[in-house]
């Protein structure tokens, strides 16, 4: 489904701040599964997603989505196949526009934007239904500007918008990290529902091991540009992951 092959990436090459993040890195993502990526801060999780989505250029290697090398495509060209939800709840929506306007835009993703009216009454019912299924009461707020929604509501809307056209691949980058624990839990549950309903192939970065285990099918731990662990989520326990972290930390200090 998604294959990352021989991917290399460095930042600040030739300066004293040179960081060699990935060196001939390989990754295989299975279809219809949710793969969680965990790893310490700065190990390159976000950079990896950014390279897959095309918002950060790669140095060399291939990114193959559905058999096609997308590494030469522009970010907006890849976006037609890839949905994203970011850590910052404002990034996945247009805060100045209303929920209805945001959803209408998301509904046209990948199509041609012309001189027709964007808002068509006949679609309202469809959007209301989608929002109703979310269970946050947003269906009554179609004409509310998104900037007036809470972080959790925005993030749920971002998720809906990213998944609306059933992308081949969904990238979630710590999308609940900016939310309070309770809201984070709600958004995680919505995420799970959505993914299992639509069967979207997903890569989810998480800083929360418990969430990672609970909501994914497979767990990958990144460390120094390598895969340090790759297991089915049902075969892994929080203790095990924490133990590995601890060992790595001690290794670093020693």
């Amino acid at each position, binding site marked *: 489904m998604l294959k990352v092959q021989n991917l290399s990436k460095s930042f600040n090459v030739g300066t004293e701040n040179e960081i060699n993040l990935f060196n001939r890195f390989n990754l295989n993502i299975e279809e219809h599964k949710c793969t969680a990526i965990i790893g310490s801060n700065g190990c390159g999780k976000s950079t990896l997603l950014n390279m897959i989505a095309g918002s950060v250029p790669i140095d060399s290697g291939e990114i193959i989505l559905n058999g096609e090398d997308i590494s030469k495509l522009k970010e*907006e060209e890849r976006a*037609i196949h890839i949905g994203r939800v*970011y850590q910052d709840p404002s990034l*996945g929506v247009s805060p100045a526009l209303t929920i209805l306007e945001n959803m209408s*835009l998301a509904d046209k*993703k990948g199509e041609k934007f012309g001189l027709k009216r*964007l808002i068509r009454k006949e679609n309202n019912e469809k959007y209301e239904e989608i929002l109703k299924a979310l269970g946050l009461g947003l269906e009554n707020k179609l004409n509310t500007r998104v900037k007036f929604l809470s972080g959790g509501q925005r993030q749920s809307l971002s998720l809906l918008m990213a998944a609306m056209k059933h992308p081949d691949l969904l990238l979630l980058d710590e999308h609940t990290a900016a939310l309070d624990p309770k809201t984070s839990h709600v958004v995680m549950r919505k995420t799970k529902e959505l993914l299992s309903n639509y069967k979207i192939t997903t890569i989810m970065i998480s800083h929360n091991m418990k969430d990672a285990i609970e909501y994914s099918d497979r767990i990958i731990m990144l460390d120094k540009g390598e895969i340090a662990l790759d297991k089915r989520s049902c075969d892994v326990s929080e203790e095990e992951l924490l133990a590995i972290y601890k060992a790595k930390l001690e290794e670093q200090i020693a």
Partner: protein
Amino acid sequence: MKLIITSLEQGLIFAILGMGVILTFKVLGESDLSVEGTFPFGAFIFAKFVSMGFNPIASTALAFCLGTLAGLMTSTLFIKLKIKPILAGILTMTMLYSINLRINGKANVPLFNYDSVFDSGSTLIILIVLVIAIKLIIDLFLKTETGYLLVATGDNETLVRSLGVNSNKYKVMGFMLANGLIALSGALMSQYQGFADITMGTGVMVVGLASIIIGDTIKKNASWFKNTSRAIVGATIYKIMGGIAIDLGLAPTDLKAISAFIVIAFIAYNNVALDLFGKASKKEGRELNVKGTKPIKEF
């Protein structure tokens, strides 16, 4: 009465400039400082074509069309060459200064001997019809799929790219439309005053900002009161206030300082006073809360 009508007419001409400035400053949230070059550019293009024998309506339309090229220039400078938008606008303005002098080979072109779009009827009525038509077209445009992408580009480019769209295209479009309108405004002004002059652009940027700011202070939170209407109302109030000030004995040359003062006072109020007195919640206090836009805060 004569004074009010003159001010109203000038206000309407500046309303077109104001609607252009809104597209870049508020919808896209970018500062386009080329305005002071684009405004006389429109005037000189009109002068060139009308003196070549084109009819005034075609010459005015050409001023709009060629004016869009100024926006293409500025946006290309900052998108392709990564020059900061503010500097890109200044560079375009500087180039336009030389170009403007080249167009007719002189710094002042009298137009009294040529036809103007105002010949066919009452100047005021022609302007009202034109301004309302432009306003309606912009409002309608902003409701289209493309128009919404323009608004979304100013609000969150990441989202626009995630829709599979190159957001830079919409920036270019916004800059081109804005500069077309500003050149159109310049072309109309030259016909109104009877000459095109190289200095006619001086200070119009601040007049445009002052107009928008005045327009924004009226019915702050009413979302039915569109940006375009705000620009029109703001520009006419600004000009009428200016007219009254002159009538009271102020020199016309003092008006520019006053417009600068309006801009300073408003932005200071927004940036400093609101924080000082803790007025309104931070979230909303700074927002002008005008549909689909950001406050002017660049300066």
